[in-house]
């Protein structure tokens, strides 16, 4: 029995040490290899460098229309980012009319923002008021009804009109074809038989052709004062996907990779120093239980990083705060157990009975305090955004890992440790 428990104790310790070693250094056995966990951990923009931009759509749309517009905008921006050849872009809708774009590790953030944010909102607007649209006019200067936007345009290219001037020819998708047919029908049925459909780019009329016939073919041209180059540019913008809505940059974070990684490395180093100091403190103060707590903490740290990698969670600076808090709670769980253990020994119980009793009584404390904090983390995850979410994720992972390591690992090791000593003094008893 004694021998078996001693063996189990050291087996667990060796296993944890091995796991931690692999996590730090990686391992290669033949063709099988695990890279150091540091390489697999996804680092947030605030650590790794990169750019995050939040755009707000300037629109009065709401409900299903807005949702559709935002989805389209997201797709188009996704296409533009792909054309830039950026890796791991994250594009998320935030709230109703916001779009958060994250480009980790991007080399030239400013140029990237320029390309992504280029609005190029193209609209075909049916003029409904008495004021006619003219080239160069602002859309606010006349009354109109939107017929379709650039999203419905399937292809665009430079062509020539009968006067040999460059024009932009375009083809519509099936929805666009229907919308355009409807628009041209309305234009030609307004009593005079002649309606006007203005072509509006970024809020300015670039062409104001009149429309006399209903166009159902889904193909048409834009006349304007184009040179070949300006026509080509417009065609390109339309092809690349003009955004269906104007975007305003409401929040940006550009983090140079040097700045980010430096602070990350210093944080890692600092955290390692901190943990070593904590372990020393625990070993000096609690003796054998302190050593066991240090082993449990090593496993805790390893589990947290592996779970983060497994879930594909991103580590951010607030995320580090979450880990620090949960590390505190992991230490706390051990401290609560050891203090209870001391109390049990004080009333004269045997070491074995004290360990069982101490555990039993510490459990309700640990469960209640962890569950309460977990509830807070869960709500912050559900209702928070950006940095708050990052904090909540690591806090939740940390709480679960700390419960596991404190409860199962500390308890088993404490019991097994009885195999090689039964001196209460080594367990923190003063008596």
């Amino acid at each position, binding site marked *: 029995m004694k021998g078996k428990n001693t063996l189990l104790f050291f087996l667990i310790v060796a296993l944890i040490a091995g796991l931690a070693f692999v996590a730090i250094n990686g391992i290669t056995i033949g063709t099988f290899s695990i890279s150091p966990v540091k390489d697999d951990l996804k680092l947030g923009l605030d650590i790794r*460098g990169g750019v995050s931009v939040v755009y*707000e759509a300037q629109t009065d749309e709401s409900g299903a229309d807005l949702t559709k517009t935002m989805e389209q905008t997201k797709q188009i921006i996704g296409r533009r980012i792909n054309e830039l050849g950026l890796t791991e872009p994250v594009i998320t809708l935030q709230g109703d009319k916001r779009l958060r774009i994250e480009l980790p590790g991007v*080399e030239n953030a*400013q140029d990237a923002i320029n390309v992504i*944010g280029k609005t190029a909102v193209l609209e075909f607007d049916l003029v409904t008021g008495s004021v006619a649209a003219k080239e160069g006019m602002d859309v606010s200067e006349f009354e109109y009804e939107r017929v379709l936007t650039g999203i419905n345009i399937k292809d665009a290219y430079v062509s020539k009109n009968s006067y040999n001037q460059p024009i932009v020819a375009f083809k519509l998708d099936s929805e666009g074809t229907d919308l355009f047919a409807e628009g041209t029908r309305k234009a030609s049925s307004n009593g005079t038989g002649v309606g006007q459909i203005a072509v509006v780019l970024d809020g300015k009329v670039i062409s104001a052709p009149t429309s006399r016939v209903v166009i159902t073919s889904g193909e048409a041209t834009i006349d304007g004062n184009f040179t070949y180059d300006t026509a080509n540019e417009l065609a390109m913008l339309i092809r690349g996907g003009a955004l269906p809505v104007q975007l305003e*940059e*409401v*929040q*940006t*974070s*550009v983090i*140079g*990779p*040097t*700045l980010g990684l*430096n602070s990350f490395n*210093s*944080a890692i*180093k*600092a*955290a390692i*120093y*901190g*943990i070593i*100091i*904590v372990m020393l*403190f625990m070993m000096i*103060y609690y003796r054998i239980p302190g050593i066991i707590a240090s082993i449990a903490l090593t496993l805790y740290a390893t589990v947290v990083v592996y779970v983060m990698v497994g879930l594909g969670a991103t580590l951010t*600076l*607030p995320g580090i*705060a*979450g880990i*620090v*808090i949960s*590390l*505190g709670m992991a*230490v*706390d769980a051990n*401290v*609560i157990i050891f*203090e209870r253990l001391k*109390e049990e020994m004080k009333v004269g119980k045997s070491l074995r009975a004290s360990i069982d009793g101490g555990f039993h*009584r510490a459990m*309700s*404390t640990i469960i*209640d*305090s*962890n569950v*309460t*904090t977990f*509830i*807070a*983390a869960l*709500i*912050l995850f559900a*209702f*928070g*955004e950006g*940095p*708050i979410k990052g904090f909540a994720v690591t806090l939740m992972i940390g709480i679960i890992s700390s419960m596991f390591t404190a409860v199962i690992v500390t308890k088993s090791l404490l019991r097994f440790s009885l195999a090689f000593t039964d001196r209460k003094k080594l367990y923190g008893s003063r008596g």
Partner: protein
Amino acid sequence: MKTINFMKHYKLWFVFSGAVILIGLIMMLVNGLNLGIDFTGGTMMQVELAKEVSVQEVADLISDFDLNPDIVHSGVDKTGVIIKTKQSLDNAKRIEVFNVFKDKYGIESKDFSADQFGPAMGEEIRNRAITAVLIASVFMLIYISIRFETVFGVAAIVCLLHDVFFLIAIYAITGKSISSSFIAAVLTIVGYSINDTIVVFDRVRENVKRDKSKDYFGIINTSVTQTMTRTINTSLTTLLVIGALYVFGASSIKEFAFPLLVGVTVGTYSSVFIASPVWAVTRRYLGKNSHYASK
């Protein structure tokens, strides 16, 4: 261990906390809070210049932009500068600023960081954070009421609110900029303070079951004394980790560790000196009329 009479001076703790919060509120009304660009809208640019450049030189360099900026050094060797302005500069404008530095010091785009917040964003971030904390409080109150009893839940939430106000007061008094690091501090408080409070309350709950005397002040004294070693050791170890981050971390980590230090300290103080007395006083006030229904 000899039982320490924590309840003896409970009014003093209330007065102390009340005074700190009051001074904070007055300072806030007089000076206003030093709101970071996350809350007011604006732009922060950080440039790594690889050598120390005087603030005046940087100010002259960018004077054409009329930013009315705050300029401070960053980094251990002061080789970086942080430029803050209340104006929300768009990408094109930021590139112009970057180019000025590029022409003069030959920096690359990787040496340049920027944060920009539109004017409405700050209010929204704040409102969302407040909503999240309030909803979290409600759910924690429900859980504590079920596992303990309502008075514990109320005392825990009072303690939580105390912490948040105390924190705002500290920021108002020290004039530290309220930015995303402040949110980190609030979150730390929500996480740590509640955990700490519950551990003390757990012992109170246990002692209430054992001690039918309804001497709530005495129960608090016993419970807080019994959990004292744990409270000190846990706070100490947590503070050691955060302290290491503060001492060994780069400047951005330092700035980030400060609110955590404050959060853990305030959280520990309040669970002993605010949450516990609030429970005892409320319990005694409800007193003989209501029977105790601890689970």
